[in-house]
């Protein structure tokens, strides 16, 4: 006989909505509930399977099998589906996300639907403008009139006349669909989570107390832009801009379960720490690596489109090879980074500024929110709880043959919810040990990189005279920075 504590009651509800252009509201065409939903699942991830990365914008996906008498595939394809699930222990239905149907198969009244979240809409561009103009417009929205803005402002919602990336997406989408405000953006909560990565310029200094070289925060915000000189980016796709900015923020773009897009950082306090035990984990449903991933190097290489070349890196000098697998984060082919570096290096002559980018990214994983353990794992769990991407997790697990539970700490990079089937949680997949690098780039980035490489091979190098070198500005930290409070 099963005891009460071993029963998990779960109910599903949802709405299939279409947009009414007459009334300009979303209208529910069909209601979903236990009686007509046969199966459902959603999946969110912030890293590719088998990898760990930053600067991603993965769309959450949905699979739904349901009975919709009288519906046609023409009605359902492209419709918006809003899903909720409620466990017996929850007081109200919990949102699972908003998804747009990308594929619909029909057998009789039974529909098998696939959908993806609002991130999918960011994979768009303006069809009503020449691509060069659109790309330049996208670049200018980040750097209006050549001005730079803090990353926080870029990723937040501004009320200025210059639209942020989200507003630009909505503009593109409205041109194509007639639907306004298709996607929503919710700011990173700095009250709860503090500043995110690369909010401030950090500098190295020599501590007079012990003579050691250390890092400290300056009073200067890190300001980003897409430089006017290369304002025409190779891509006018907003999703690329989301990726570039989130890479510099040390996080990822995702859709929350309420449907809004947001930036997240690994281990941010707002997410808390999830906890699962042996009693929550399905039999033969858990694998945990006996190592963690160690970011031993962060390298930052901007493309200055000049004869100048700079790079910055932050290196963890003592990798613990016995228990950790070293990985490298490489930030390159990032026009937002390029704009930052061109402003500070070319205009201000501040060479160490590119180092602050690398340092902050490394800092984000080991000091900002404390040590973020990245331990690859996969677990199938049945617990009346909800899990989030980037959330820390404590796994208390006793495998077959073991006499006691072992506690593993990690961070969640993949969450799959299944209707009356629990959650499948994962971090970094199963192939992390063979992973040597951690690199994110879009197809456009790769194409640009290849093209620039070819151009560089045939480009002639300009020689500078001694007088021209003498005329270049000299970086003097004492003049540029005040000396704020010491911080390690």
């Amino acid at each position, binding site marked *: 006989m*099963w005891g009460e504590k*071993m*029963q*998990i*009651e*779960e109910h599903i509800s949802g709405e299939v909505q279409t947009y009414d252009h007459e009334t300009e509201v979303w209208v529910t065409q069909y209601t979903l509930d*236990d*009686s*007509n939903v*046969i199966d459902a699942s959603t999946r969110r991830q912030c890293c590719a399977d088998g990898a760990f990365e930053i600067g991603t914008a993965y769309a959450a996906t949905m699979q739904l099998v349901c*009975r919709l*008498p009288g519906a046609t595939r023409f009605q359902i394809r492209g419709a918006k589906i809003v899903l909720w699930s409620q466990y017996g222990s929850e007081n109200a239905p919990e949102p699972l996300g908003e998804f747009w149907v990308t594929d619909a198969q*029909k*057998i*009789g*009244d*039974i529909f098998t639907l696939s959908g993806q979240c609002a991130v999918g809409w960011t994979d768009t561009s303006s069809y009503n403008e020449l691509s060069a103009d659109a790309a330049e417009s996208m670049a200018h929205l980040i750097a209006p009139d050549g001005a730079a803005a803090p990353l926080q402002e870029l990723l937040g919602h501004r009320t200025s006349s210059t639209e942020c990336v989200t507003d630009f997406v909505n503009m593109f989408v409205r041109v194509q669909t007639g639907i306004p405000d298709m996607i929503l953006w919710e700011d990173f909560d700095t009250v709860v989570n503090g500043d995110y990565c690369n909010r401030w310029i950090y500098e190295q200094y020599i501590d007079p107390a012990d003579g050691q070289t250390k890092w400290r925060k300056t009073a200067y915000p890190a300001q980003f832009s897409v430089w006017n000189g290369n304002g025409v980016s190779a891509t006018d796709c907003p999703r690329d801009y989301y990726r570039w900015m989130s890479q510099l923020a040390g996080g990822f773009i995702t859709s929350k379960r309420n449907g809004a897009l947001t930036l997240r950082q690994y281990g941010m306090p707002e997410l808390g720490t999830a906890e699962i035990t*042996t*009693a*929550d*984990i*399905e*039999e*033969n*449903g*858990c694998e945990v690596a006996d190592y963690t991933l160690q970011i031993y190097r962060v390298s930052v290489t901007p493309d200055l489109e000049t004869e100048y070349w700079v790079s910055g890196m932050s290196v963890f000098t003592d990798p613990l090879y016995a228990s950790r697998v070293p990985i490298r984060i490489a930030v390159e082919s990032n026009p937002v980074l390029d704009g930052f570096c061109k402003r500070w290096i070319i205009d201000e002559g501040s060479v160490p500024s590119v180092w602050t980018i690398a340092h902050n990214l490394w800092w984000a994983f080991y000091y900002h929110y404390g040590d973020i353990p990245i331990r690859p794992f996969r677990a199938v769990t*049945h617990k009346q709880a909800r899990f989030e991407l980037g959330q820390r997790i404590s796994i208390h*697990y*006793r*495998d077959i043959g073991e006499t006691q539970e072992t506690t593993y700490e990690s961070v969640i990079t993949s969450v799959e919810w299944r209707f*009356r*089937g*629990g959650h499948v949680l994962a971090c970094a997949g199963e192939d992390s040990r063979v992973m040597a690098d951690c690199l994110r780039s879009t197809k456009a980035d790769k194409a640009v990189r290849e093209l620039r490489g070819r151009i560089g091979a045939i480009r002639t190098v300009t020689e500078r005279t001694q007088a021209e070198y003498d005329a270049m500005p000299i970086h003097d930290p004492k003049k540029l920075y005040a000396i704020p409070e010491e911080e390690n």
Partner: protein
Amino acid sequence: MRLIDIYKQTAGGIVYITGGCIQTGEPALQRTPIVKTYTMADGSPVVYPSARDTCTAEVELECTRTQAAAIEQLVSGAHIIFAGLKLGALLGYDAQDQGNFPPTSPIPCIITGAVEVGEKFAKSGIYFANIPVQLIVGVSGYPDTSGLALPVIRSSVTLDGAADGLNGYRIGKRKWGAVQEVFFQRKQIYVTGADSLTIGYSCEELTGAAVSVTLWQNGTAAADSTETQDAFTVEPDPGTNDLVLEFLGAASRPLYIGLTVFRQHVG
């Protein structure tokens, strides 16, 4: 074994496909509660209860070449209606008769795979058709107003011939195929209260035949629209070749009585 008529539910209504196929054996019925159960790593079970079951079945039919051709036209995804197929009882529901023939209510019985029309017996020209179907059955009660429940399954027989009175009721004989012979008859009778009806029959080579009788009530629209089926057991009396039916219930009502006699094919 039963005679099965096949209909297809279309947007324009119910379309007759073919009839008189013989159900061979019981459908391979797999009733799977949508109650999902998992075992945790500490050995404890976790159950997600549900109010629905998924029911899959494969129906095997014997048919002629002409019927086989009609059945072959059915495709996966089609809503089909089996008239005469007694799935309801196998699922734990009493098979109820709607009193209408052919049935007018759609049965969410969906073909989930290819309809296979199989081998042909050279001697008899008999084909076998295999139809995989799926039903989603509500277990919270019947009928399930969610629309996914198994609706009324007809237990029906198509009969020809005329009755010549309650007693000494003669059953006509229709030869069907060289191997199997089917005899059926239908007549409307009027039963007052608990009553008994003796039906005499004669049939050649009836030894070993399995006899089944179906009974359904079709009240007039004004007087009685209740549709029920009396439960009864019929045992042929080998001595007298009489069928004695004991009717249950007290209400006077008109009844249709169907009588089907099957014989296992030989050879």
